C-alpha cells in the first residue's frame, strides 16, 4: 500500500457507506416481499370469505325462490280473486246491513264507509297492508 493515508481513508469510508446502503436496500426488498406476502394472504382470505358467503347466499336463494314463486303464483291465481270476491260480497252485504260495515268490514278496509270498488285488495293494495286490525274500533252491537 503505497497510497497516501487520506485517499485510503476516503476509499474505506465510501466502501463502508456503499455496504451499508446495500444492506439497507436488501432489507427494504425483503420487507417489500414480506408485506406483499401479507397482503396476498389478507386479500386471499377476504376473497375466500366472500366466495363462501356468495355460495351460501346463492344456495339459500335457490332453495327459497321456487317456494316463494309458487306461493305468489297461487296467491295471484286463487287467493287474490277469492279476496276480491269476498270483499265485493261483503261490501254488497254492508250496503244492505249497515251494522256489518263498522263492526267487521271497516277494520280491514280502513274506511268509515264501504268503498265502491274492489280495488283495495291487490298485490299493490294499501288498505289491506296493515297486518292486524285496529284495537279501539267500535264494538259490534
Amino acid at each position, binding site marked *: 500500500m503505497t497510497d497516501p493515508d487520506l485517499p485510503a481513508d476516503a476509499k474505506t469510508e465510501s466502501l463502508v457507506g456503499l455496504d451499508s446502503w446495500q444492506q439497507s436496500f436488501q432489507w427494504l*426488498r425483503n420487507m*417489500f*416481499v414480506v408485506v*406483499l*406476502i401479507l*397482503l*396476498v394472504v389478507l*386479500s*386471499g382470505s*377476504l*376473497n375466500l370469505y*366472500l*366466495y363462501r*358467503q*356468495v355460495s351460501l*347466499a*346463492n344456495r*339459500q*336463494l335457490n332453495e*327459497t*325462490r321456487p317456494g*316463494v314463486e309458487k*306461493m*305468489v303464483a297461487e*296467491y295471484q291465481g286463487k*287467493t287474490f280473486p*277469492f*279476496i276480491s*270476491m*269476498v270483499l265485493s*260480497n*261483503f261490501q254488497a*252485504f254492508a250496503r244492505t*246491513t249497515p*251494522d*256489518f260495515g263498522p*263492526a*267487521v*268490514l271497516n*277494520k*280491514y278496509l280502513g274506511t268509515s264507509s264501504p268503498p265502491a270498488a274492489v280495488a283495495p*285488495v291487490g*298485490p299493490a*293494495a294499501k288498505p*289491506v*297492508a*296493515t*297486518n*292486524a*286490525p285496529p284495537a279501539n274500533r267500535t264494538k*259490534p252491537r
Partner: protein
Amino acid sequence: MKRQPLALTLMMVLFLNAVVAPILSYRFIQITREQNRLKMQYNAVNGKTQLLQQLLSEALEYSRKDPTIDPLLEKIGVKTRPATPVTATKPTNK
C-alpha cells in the same frame, strides 16, 4: 437491476385478488337484494292471507249474532249449510 420473481408473482396474485374481490362483492349484493325482494313478496302474501283469515273468522263470529249473513258465507264457502232433515228432501207421493 436484478429482478425478483417472487415479488413479481406475489404482485400478480395480489392484482388478481384485487380484481376478484369487487366481482364477488357485487354478486353478493345482487343475491342479497333478490333475497330481500323474495322475503318482501312472501311477507306481503302471508300478511294478506292472514288478514283474509281474520276477516272471515270475524264474519263467522258476526254470523252468530246476525244470521242474515249466512247465505253469503255459504256462498263463498266459509260456512257449510246445515244438514237438512231427510223428511224435507223426500218427495211426497200422494
